[in-house]
């Protein structure tokens, strides 16, 4: 067995392919041998540093033609030799002849361990990090948008003041930030950033605008300022919700919006949520049918809230009283809209359903519920039968405790 091991070692040494191999350990255990081989050759130790760094920082000729690597200065070659001196490695040692004299007086200096210092290693890492000028931005969780550090959903502050007009109470939020291309006669495919943002004072004054620019920052600024120039006044019901349910559409996007009671919140698409926050709407349910293209959602929603009618107008249109019954007031009927000429025909009131009237006789599509494939299987039914008597059990137990002991 020992002979065989030596032979392998010799083979390894003699073969040019196994030039850099090292045999780390050979375990001899119950007649089984393990041979662990490591190849320490790669382009890292074959190529000079310059070539390796070029591979990371530069763009190939073909890539340059396609317009890659325009964001210059994102990655810069680091000089890894900076902060290091010969003989000082990860293991701090005195190397006689390398980092210390070999003789001390008449005495021969031996290799010996120095005191460890972590600061030095950290210092080197810090130094290396500071050399590159690109860092992933760390965002405060409050400032985050819809997703990570992406722009959509993030606030970009109030629009810049125009003359003496200040937008002090305004807040602008980005809804869309994307790259768009156009073909130019002399430049070919030209790239720009398109930004859609909405600005508002949270009290019924809001506007939105799209702007394009070759730089993201410019596009953001342009769109923000343009939105500030296109403000629309929106009346809010009880300063928190919309006046009535409505249907609105733009292109293939259809939106059904529903008025909701105090404390309901915004249950809708994130773009509509952001717009509502900026306008000052606090309670709303909205269902989108069809395309969820953000530009279309914004346009459809703004059209919808601008086309709202007051209770008085609705009453005059139908010649019927508009009466609100609140459950919080135990069904107290409040007259909200009074017509000029109240109709006495009970048939018209029976036919006219308020929600159908405000939604323009449109009905939200009720999608058929798709059950999982195992739903009708015998096993699942058995499981449900078994679980049935434990449903709600925790709640019932809690209720019992509360009712009997306190």
């Amino acid at each position, binding site marked *: 067995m020992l002979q065989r091991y030596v032979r392998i070692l010799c083979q390894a040494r003699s073969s040019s392919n196994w030039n850099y191999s090292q045999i780390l350990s050979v375990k001899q255990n119950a007649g089984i041998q393990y041979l662990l081989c490591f190849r320490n050759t790669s382009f890292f130790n074959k190529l000079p540093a310059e070539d390796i760094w070029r591979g990371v920082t530069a763009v190939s000729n073909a890539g340059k033609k396609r317009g890659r690597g325009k964001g210059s200065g994102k990655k810069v070659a680091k000089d890894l030799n900076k902060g290091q001196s010969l003989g000082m490695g990860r293991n701090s040692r005195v190397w006689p002849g390398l980092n210390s004299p070999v003789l001390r007086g008449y005495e021969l200096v031996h290799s010996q361990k120095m005191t460890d210092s972590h600061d030095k290693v950290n210092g080197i890492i810090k130094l290396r990090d500071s050399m590159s000028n690109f860092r992933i931005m760390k965002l405060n969780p409050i400032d985050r948008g819809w997703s990570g550090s992406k722009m959509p959903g993030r606030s970009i502050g109030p629009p810049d003041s125009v003359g003496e007009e200040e937008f002090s109470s305004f807040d602008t939020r980005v809804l869309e930030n994307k790259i768009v291309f156009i073909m130019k006669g002399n430049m070919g495919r030209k790239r720009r950033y398109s930004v859609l943002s909405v600005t508002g004072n949270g009290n019924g004054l809001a506007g939105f605008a799209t702007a394009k620019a070759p730089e993201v920052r410019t596009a953001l600024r342009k769109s923000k300022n343009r939105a500030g120039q296109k403000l629309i006044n929106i009346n809010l019901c009880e300063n928190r919700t919309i006046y*009535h349910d409505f249907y609105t559409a733009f292109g293939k996007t259809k939106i059904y919006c529903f008025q*909701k*009671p*105090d*404390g309901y919140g915004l249950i809708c698409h994130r773009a509509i949520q952001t717009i509502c926050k900026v306008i000052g709407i606090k309670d709303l349910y909205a269902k989108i049918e069809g395309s969820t293209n953000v530009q279309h959602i914004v346009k459809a929603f703004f059209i919808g809230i601008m086309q709202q009618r007051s209770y008085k107008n609705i009453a005059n249109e*139908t010649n*019927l*009283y*508009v*009466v*609100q*019954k*609140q*459950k*919080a*007031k*135990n*069904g*107290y*009927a409040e*007259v*909200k809209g*009074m*017509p*000029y000429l*109240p*109709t*006495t*025909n*009970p048939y*018209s*009131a029976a036919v*006219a*359903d*308020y*929600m159908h*009237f405000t939604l323009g006789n449109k009905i939200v599509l009720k999608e058929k519920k798709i059950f999982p494939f195992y739903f009708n299987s015998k096993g699942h039914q058995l499981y449900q039968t078994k679980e049935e008597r434990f449903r709600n059990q925790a709640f019932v137990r809690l209720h019992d*405790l509360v*009712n*009997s*002991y*306190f």
Partner: protein
Amino acid sequence: MHLVRQIRQLNGLQGLRHALRQVSTAPTKPATLKYERDPQPLFTDAETQKLLQSMTQLHLDRVFRKRTVPDNSSEIKFMTTEQLELEFQSMVEKAQHMLQMPPVVKIKEDVDRIIAKDPALKDFADTKFVFTDITFGRRQSERKVVVRETDGTLAYASLDTTKRMNQLYFPLDGRQSYTPRMFALEELIAKCLTEHKYEYVMDRLLVQYEPHEPEFHNISARVFEHLNESKQFDLLRSTRHFGPMAFFYAWHRCIDDLLYDMIRRDYLQNAVELIALSYKIHNVPVEYQETLAKLDALHPTPAQSALTELRSGMRQPEGQQGIEQEIHSAIGKTEKDFTADEISLQFIEQYIASEHALKKVQLELAVQTLKEVNQEKLQLFQGLKKAHGIQAS
């Protein structure tokens, strides 16, 4: 692990329950005033009920005020004039139903009613056995609960046991099996009273106890006594507790503070009714029916006035009593009101002069102030009428 934690929680709760029981044995401070006779026949009398209802008044915005509910959604409807009218009527009916007064009855005494004594069954078990009739649809009061004692006696259960069994098999929403801390701890109830949460205490009391229970009498009397000192009577107006409160004061001859409050707020008819109620309860030989009849003819009932107020929100046919209506709404009183005020003031002054009134000076002052204000209003009313050329009817 979870199970162990739950068991520990349960143990903790039991410990607490033990503590609470100890606390609840020490009752809250007893009230000073009690019904020594049975007040029920006088209270349920039709005339008394009418007086109390009139005194309670019916402000719809008070009855249907915004409350915290699990579902606070609202519904919007189209209605014709007729439908709206019907809706208003049903709302007033509903309000009247919500203002139904809890009965004032005497405390029910616990009596032992033994059915059978079977000495042969002695020591058949270590514990008593309670048998409850759980037939569906039977009223709580007629549900039979019997107990077999360990010595073999079979007897009807005590009121306490009957209530507990009823709550066990047919739980009433909001009623607890053990005394709520609010009623068990003196400092908690005192805090509620100092914060003037009278309606809340009364509502909770009504859910937790039956009107014939001593706790109900004690705590409600304490609330009314506290109210008489703090004089915040308006907090109970248009609630179902105003009637029992007025009855309580009339019964215990302490109506003067409530009367003063009524005069100050210009509820003169109510003041007359309160005095009449007091005369009725104590059999004072004063003829009050005539005055009441006169006032009834001049004033609409609370339900009627609530309905008129609701109707004012509807579109009025134009050109009908335009200017006269405007004068009334500007001054707040009509000609009828002035006549009624005169009759009421006469009756009230008669009461103040009699030996029944205790706070005479205070009441006289209030009446005097009201008279002056009324005089000014009357002058203004007549002047305005003259200016607009409306003939006095």
